[in-house]
């Protein structure tokens, strides 16, 4: 997106947020804009339509209920929604005692494979051993990978969403990638 357009979009968003503080109905513009990405984000973790619908709904009503507390940190408003969404998903896993869904095909994403610097013969090993490798990851590490590579978030956004610093998000992501690369080499 052109930076001028991006600035205008951000200004519009800020205006809607300000208006939503007085008139909650104005929030519908934000809801319409981000409902699908937030729903997909939740659904990719939950894997159930009905539960994803409820969680997505709670993300938006919590955001609206606390909109006065929202502090613009120069990131898109959606980062705040993603941050609430991650919280909601993990509350759901804990409260409902559910598994977090991981779609293996996503892990064949070209950007991730490039970052892992796998040789051609190692890609098959990566694919075959994915469940075992991913199972060793901490939830936060898995989120780092998915937010960075599947949601294409900047490290600043990733850090904000996960409640860690930008530097920490960066260091941790590369540490996880390094560990995964090593594991694949061990298996080849």
């Amino acid at each position, binding site marked *: 997106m052109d930076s001028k357009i991006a600035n205008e979009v951000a200004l519009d968003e800020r205006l809607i947020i300000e208006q939503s503080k007085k008139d*909650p*109905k104005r*929030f519908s513009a934000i*809801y*319409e804009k981000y*409902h*699908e990405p937030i*729903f*997909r984000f939740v*659904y*990719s973790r939950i*894997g159930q*339509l009905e539960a994803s*619908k409820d969680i*997505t*709904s*709670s993300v*938006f*009503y*919590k*955001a*609206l*209920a*606390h909109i006065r507390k929202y502090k613009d940190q120069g990131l898109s408003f959606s980062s*705040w929604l993603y*941050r*609430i969404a*991650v*919280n909601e998903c*993990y*509350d759901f*896993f*804990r*409260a409902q*005692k*559910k*598994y*977090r*869904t*991981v*779609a*293996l095909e996503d892990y064949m994403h070209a950007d991730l494979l490039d970052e892992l610097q796998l040789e051609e013969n190692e890609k098959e*090993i990566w694919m*075959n*051993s*994915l*469940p*075992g490798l*991913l*199972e*060793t990851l*901490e*939830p*936060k590490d*898995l989120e780092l990978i998915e937010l960075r590579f599947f949601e294409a978030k900047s490290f600043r956004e990733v850090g904000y969403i996960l*409640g*860690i610093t930008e530097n920490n998000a960066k260091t941790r992501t590369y540490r996880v990638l390094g560990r995964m690369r090593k*594991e694949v080499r*061990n*298996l080849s």
Partner: protein
Amino acid sequence: MKYRFVKRRQEVSTEEINSLRDFDLVLKGSRRLLDIAYKSKLLWTLTIPVAVVVYTLAVNQPAVEEPVQEEQPIQEEVLDKSSEQKEEIIQEEQPKVEEPKTVVSTPPKKESDRSQVPDPLESKFQQPAEEIETSSELLKEDILIKAAPKMGFEKFYQFIDRELTYPELARKDSIQGHVKVLFSVDRAGKVSNITIAESLGDLFDNEAIRVMNRLPDWNPATFNGEPVSSRMSIKLTFKIK
């Protein structure tokens, strides 16, 4: 955290997602949260002045009672004792009252508590204390079945116990502890790529590797019923007997 691995998630179309939109539900939910927050604020607003009044009365009470105490010294003693007893009981009870408070932070937060968004995420990534879901609730093709020793885990641990010997040369230093070993189980169930993740010194590491190299075949991990290679870890404990 337990993961449920699926090869690919079921696709959902934009139309389907849009049909799930319900902004009225968002407005209602938000109003409900604000209502809860308002009621709890109101409760506090009412409670604090009441508490202040009660406290003021309690502080002023001895001044009112003083003349009575002077006139009735016997009663004073009795009252004092009973108040001492009360204090003791309260002190004993205090920890009991506080206990649930510490417990409250651990289980999933209630709707009204969770409304304090966005909290730092650390707590959200805590693992559930109990088993999450029984495997019977999952589709078989969606789960990873971990590699396991062909002989079964019980016999496997017996094998380790029998084979693993404390290095004689280390006995003089009385070292005890564990060596964490990582190893691969390939699709054929062969154990390979044995590496030390947590070392206890060369003597112990070498002994751990020696035993691991003697491990009989495993049943490989499977995903979608297909064997896959996997990486496992085990802690081998060395104790002086």
